[in-house]
């Protein structure tokens, strides 16, 4: 058990604490406060600019409530996702996304209009969307704590009751006692510098597991994005117009944006350089492309490259679970986790319910973030408000698996964090471990990750900016262990999970894999609704 929070640091009370201020967290905060809950939102970075959506932009699964269109939308990725999605969840998310998109239009998002003046609501520009969400959250009276990563959850015998963290700009600790907590910390991209993703280190997954929640779909966690070697911009939609070349100008057969990423990976693995050129984009389309994703062109413009004419070197940058589908297991329609008082939303939660084991490019993730955020916010508010007066006077204790302390921790925390980060990256980044999976390589990697976990587990973590980095490395190691344990257990190829030693789909494994545990990791199958989509 950890020491109670030091006096003099920031202590707040709320009905609902939302951890993470991306799309999922801001929708959770808005919907919880609309239910009458007092809400605090804590973000590791800055609510409005932090997370995967803010610097980017997302296509959104916005489908008119027309039966035929909706059925088509549901069917579009069903098989690709390994038939693990569920009808009822897809329906709920399509409905809520439609509602939410219309709502932000009314709240001032500048959607473009078509020839007859109707707003076009199929995509969102990240900076614009998240600046507006911050404004709406503030207007709703939510207290925002920026630069305030959560380091551990607090709980008593009734369930989760808040969290503690650090304000990285002042060095002070913070704690919020709350009736319910929503985890909306995004996915885990292992500090790969994919666009906007370095705040996403799986923290929420570790927090949830420490409270006793499970993960689901962690084998669907190996998203890699095509990206120029000289850039962080992992926007991939436009590579559908790309041809891929070797250094000598000959074509890389089979390479492509959607199905052909593995051809790119194999070449990179063998030490060959791969180049891309968007030479299949019709000339009259190019100005449209330039406007729709301004930041895609930013690196090229700055380096004087015309990507429609010049070939440029590319790599595959790891996005881990961010554009994968694994995350905290959801056990009810309010996005509860099975732990009283704990809810999960967005990339931190599993997205299998709407897209199975594959999300690919655009739209489902954004729809899930805003819908699950809303479900979780409403669920958390109802739960917290139902606690009534019992909520006051709770004195919960910390749940961290590493010892958190206000004492000056042993010196060298910063260099240890760097060392641990490199050690985890060495397991999750290589294409021949994470993308092309085999039982043997996964097992060997898990052995190393288990040893790493043991070493990290014994470290004291100071409640300071340096300590934050150590906790991040613990979260990444834990995430990697659930990933590879699940990948090892799924002896087939389904969705984005590809086993070289089990290349076919196995009908007997048509289930979800849930996982969890800290020192001892466990994995077990869970029935998914067996349905088909026409």
């Amino acid at each position, binding site marked *: 058990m950890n020491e109670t929070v030091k006096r003099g640091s920031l202590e707040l009370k709320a009905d609902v604490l939302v951890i993470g201020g991306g799309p999922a967290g801001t929708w959770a905060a808005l919907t919880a406060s609309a239910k009458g809950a007092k809400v605090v939102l804590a973000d590791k970075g800055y609510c409005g600019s932090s997370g995967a959506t803010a610097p980017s932009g997302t296509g959104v699964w916005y489908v008119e409530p027309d039966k035929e269109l909706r059925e088509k939308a549901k069917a579009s990725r069903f098989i690709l996702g390994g038939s693990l999605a569920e009808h009822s969840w897809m329906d709920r998310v399509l409905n809520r996304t439609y509602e939410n998109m219309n709502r932000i239009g009314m709240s001032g998002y500048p959607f473009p209009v078509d020839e007859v003046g109707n707003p076009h609501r199929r995509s969102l520009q990240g*900076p614009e969307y998240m600046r507006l969400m911050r404004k709406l959250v503030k207007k709703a009276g939510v207290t925002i704590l920026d630069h305030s990563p959560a380091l551990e959850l607090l709980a008593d015998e009734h369930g989760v009751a808040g969290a503690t963290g650090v304000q990285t700009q002042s060095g002070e600790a913070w704690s919020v006692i709350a009736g319910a907590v929503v985890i909306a910390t995004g996915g885990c991209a292992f500090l790969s510098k994919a666009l906007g993703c370095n705040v996403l280190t799986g923290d929420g997954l570790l927090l949830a597991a420490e409270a006793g929640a499970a993960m689901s779909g962690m084998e669907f966690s190996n998203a890699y994005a095509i990206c120029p070697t000289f850039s962080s911009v992992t926007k991939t*939609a436009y590579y559908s117009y790309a041809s891929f070349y070797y250094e000598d100008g000959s074509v890389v057969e089979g390479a492509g944006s959607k199905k052909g990423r593995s051809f790119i990976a194999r070449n990179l693995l063998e030490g060959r350089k791969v180049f891309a050129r968007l030479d299949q984009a019709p000339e009259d389309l190019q100005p449209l492309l330039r406007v729709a994703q301004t930041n895609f062109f930013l690196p090229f413009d700055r380096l004087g490259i015309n990507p429609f004419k010049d070939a440029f070197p590319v790599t595959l940058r790891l996005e881990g679970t961010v554009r994968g589908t694994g995350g905290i297991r959801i056990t009810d329609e309010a996005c509860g986790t099975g732990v009283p008082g704990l809810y999960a939303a967005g990339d931190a939660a599993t997205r299998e319910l709407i897209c199975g084991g594959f999300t690919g490019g655009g739209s489902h993730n954004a729809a899930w973030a805003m819908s699950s955020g809303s479900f979780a916010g409403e669920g958390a508010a109802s739960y917290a408000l139902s606690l009534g007066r019992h909520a006051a006077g709770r004195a919960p204790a910390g749940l961290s698996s590493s010892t958190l302390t206000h004492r000056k921790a042993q010196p060298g925390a910063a260099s240890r964090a760097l060392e641990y980060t490199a050690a985890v990256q060495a397991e999750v980044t290589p294409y021949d471990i994470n993308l092309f999976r085999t039982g043997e390589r996964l097992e060997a990697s898990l052995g190393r990750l288990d040893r790493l976990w043991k070493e990290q587990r014994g470290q004291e973590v100071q409640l300071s900016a340096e300590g934050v980095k150590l906790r991040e490395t613990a979260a990444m190691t834990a995430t990697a262990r659930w990933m590879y344990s699940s990948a090892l257990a799924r002896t087939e190829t389904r969705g984005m999970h590809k086993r070289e030693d089990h290349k076919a789909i196995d009908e007997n494994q048509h289930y979800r894999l849930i996982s969890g545990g800290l020192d001892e990791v466990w994995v077990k199958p869970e029935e998914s609704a067996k349905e088909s989509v026409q």
Partner: protein
Amino acid sequence: MIEVISADRCIGCNQCVSVCPTNVFDRSGGKVPVIARQSDCQTCFMCELYCPVDALYVAPDSEAATGITETELKERGLLGGYREKVGWGKGRKPVASHGFMVQLSRRAGF
């Protein structure tokens, strides 16, 4: 990564210090902020977008600093280019409302 803060342009508003998701800058009492933790920069360009006077430059390379100087940036007109394209700033129209989005979505599906 973040490489340049133009002391000529900066008005010390500390917006960049607030919005940087990975806390790269340190405040310096109403004066020009300091790039204190450059290696933590995730090359997301958000500081550039929020700077009201186009005083910042983020080079596209996320792994290593390129050493580009303010003089070069001014010569090549690179300061503030992103904010202009996104359509933020007085008198500009946000690119989010551009009609090309509709046309592109019809033709290409995104």
